[in-house]
């Protein structure tokens, strides 16, 4: 990929990566491009993400400083999991019988995890927009407690635009692979988002073909079609 900056108009909040909503932090990874994010709740943050802000197919990013440059590592939520150590029992509980001291478990342990598949990287420009987006696999690994932020639509659009203005979705194969059984669905969710960002007819047509291809392929995989 070339290092030339994209030619989008800077300035609108919608296409800048500063002041975005933090939706969680990384807690573990399953592979180089597959991370688990713990979604913030009301106790973690003053402004916890609403359900539609950390939903399935939501593009996210993590800011990362490599050397002197600031990058965003782009990803998408492809899976979510709820965790409740109380297994459905609510309220304070007593300690175990052999535990001499009564310790009420008031720590809120219920939480929501999200699986994030990495899609690519981009350089953060001086004005807060992204430049030189690449959809190749990121070379660096993220760290535990790296903050995952909700990606605004403008950034998502920039990330999917090549320097010559074409639409790019080069990560699809990796995404389908990482997301497994939900791969087709998450890709379709992304395609749906891109439809709004790329209203031009030729882009819509390309998205149509891609959508059909994914739908057909997943139907074949599931044995619905042949």
């Amino acid at each position: 990929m070339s290092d030339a900056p994209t030619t989008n108009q800077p300035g609108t909040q919608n296409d800048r990566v500063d002041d975005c909503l933090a939706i969680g932090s990384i807690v573990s990874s399953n592979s180089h491009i597959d991370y688990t994010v713990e979604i913030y709740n009301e106790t973690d943050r003053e402004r916890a993400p609403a359900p539609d802000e950390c939903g399935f197919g939501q593009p996210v990013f993590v800011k990362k400083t490599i050397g002197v440059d600031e990058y965003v590592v782009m990803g998408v939520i492809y899976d979510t999991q709820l965790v409740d150590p109380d297994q459905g029992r609510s309220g304070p509980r007593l300690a175990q019988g052999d535990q001499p001291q009564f310790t009420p478990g008031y720590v809120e342990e219920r939480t929501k995890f999200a699986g994030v598949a990495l899609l690519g990287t981009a350089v953060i420009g001086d004005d807060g927009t992204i430049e030189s987006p690449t959809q190749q696999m990121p070379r660096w690994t993220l760290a535990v407690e790296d903050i995952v932020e909700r990606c605004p639509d403008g950034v998502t659009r920039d990330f999917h635009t090549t320097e010559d203005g074409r639409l790019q979705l080069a990560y699809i194969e990796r995404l389908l692979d990482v997301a497994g059984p939900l791969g087709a669905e998450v890709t379709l969710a992304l395609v749906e988002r891109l439809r709004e960002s790329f209203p031009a007819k030729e882009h819509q047509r390309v998205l149509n073909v891609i959508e059909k291809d994914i739908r057909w392929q997943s139907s074949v995989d599931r044995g619905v079609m042949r």
Partner: protein
Amino acid sequence: MSTPPSSSTTTGSNGDLIGTVAGPGDGPNEFFIVTPDEQAVKTGEFITYSVTVEGTPRDVIARVTNREQARGLPETFMADPHVAPEAVAGTLGVPTEDIDLYRLEATVIGFYDTNMETFSNPRQLPRPGTQLRTAPDAMLEAVLPNLGVGAADARTESGVVTLSSVDVTARDGLAHMGWLLNRETGAVDLHVPIDEFAATHLAILASTGSGKSYTAGVLMEEMMKPDVRASLLVFDPHGEYGSLSEMRGEDMFAGEDGYRPEVEYFTPENLRIRISELSVGDVMAVLDNPSDRMQERLAEGWRTMQQRESRTWGVDELLDEMRNQYGTDDASVGALEWRLRRSIQRNELFTTDMNVPLDDLVAPGRCTVLQMDTLSRRDQQMIATVLLRRLYQARLAAVRERGDDPNFDGDIIEFPLFSLFEEGHRFAPATGDAPSLGIMRTITSEGRKFGFGLGIISQRPSKIDQDVLSQCGTQVTMKIQNPTDQKAIESSVEAAGEDVLRELPGLTPGQAVVSGDAMNTPVLIQVRQRHTQHGADSIPATEEWRTAHEQRQEQPTRSEGADMGGGDSSGEVDLLGDR
């Protein structure tokens, strides 16, 4: 023509590298090639590779017969015709450049054996990984037609045998028909040996409008050039060869010794058949349903007349003879009289004394065109029958050296002949219903020994007598879509392999497959431009209708009485014209 390469092999290869052998193919002489470049090799292209046969490295020539895509973008990328698959691929980050791989099938033709002067199949396929090149232009020019290039012809000054060094244009007696269709215009010129097709006969087969007469015109031009000076006789039922006379003035046909081709036209007015030249079978063919008894009477009378010294007898003398034999009131002779007078005596074609002198008709360096467009089909056949029989006997007499015999008083033609039949199915119909068929069968089966070649031009191979067609050793086949005609070619033309037949429906006017004795392997060519004008263009119907209509509008209207019948003009015979 490309420059000869300096190669130490027997043939020499300098063509472009086009692909790699992937492995053996379906048939024993087939192999697969993988190539990334779809443009480098077209179907029908000649490619070459090197194989060591009995210790000598040989450049084997193979022909690409089929191609398929081995690798490329998935079909789902083509779901919307408005979106280029490359655009989808580009969006998905799929590489689009240099990803296509093609799998070609090739059939081994063989290496050119300078001792055998033809192709020899090495009976071994190239190893997988062998590099393949396009066969050099100059080499193809030397080995595709049956030119009999030997080791001596191909030896360069340094003593190396290099086929590409053979200068085909320096040879005499070759007809430049055109160039290989797969290569650039004029890159590989095809020169067909005239001796070969003049001896073993020629068939030009194509549906109408595909350039049959054009191709025949090209061959005739080549045959009238100073290095050939053929004796040509053209049976032209449509008057399509009127423009050949232009050859007389063209400098390219002039020889250094002052030779200019003669082009003679014979119209029905100066085409006459002496009745005594007819055989009894010919007469039977023109009579209306003679009964068995009539046939027997006629045969006997005819035989007696032919034994006479005089050759200027006519129908009257024949009838007198038959009345002598069978009596004046024989009913069959009476019936024959009516038929003979109607079919022969009243037909201006037949005379008692005049006969076209063969010396006027044929001569070396002379192209004689018999313009028979005003004659009925039966008369055309009669002329062909009698002329062919006389010419054949004259050639027979020359070859058997009857000229030395003082008692021999027939014609003698001391030079070989080539006779071309436009609408060949008229003269040798598959139905057998033509007096000319017999002599045409004789000439095609035996003419080679007597230096009498025939060229059959036809748009309906299925309507030509299969014996005649199968004897045509060289075939120029152009676009043919009719399945019956394709089948006729398949069954009667030996050299027409599957490759050739597959090409036929897809050819465009001016493209032809040349196969048979004159070629070492069938070749797809583009026929060259004619030096003289082509005379068989379609009539511009709409223009002529318009002009005719305008003329009619200008004429005063005239009323015409209704024909209530009873007159002597039925018009039917004239309209059909074939009776």
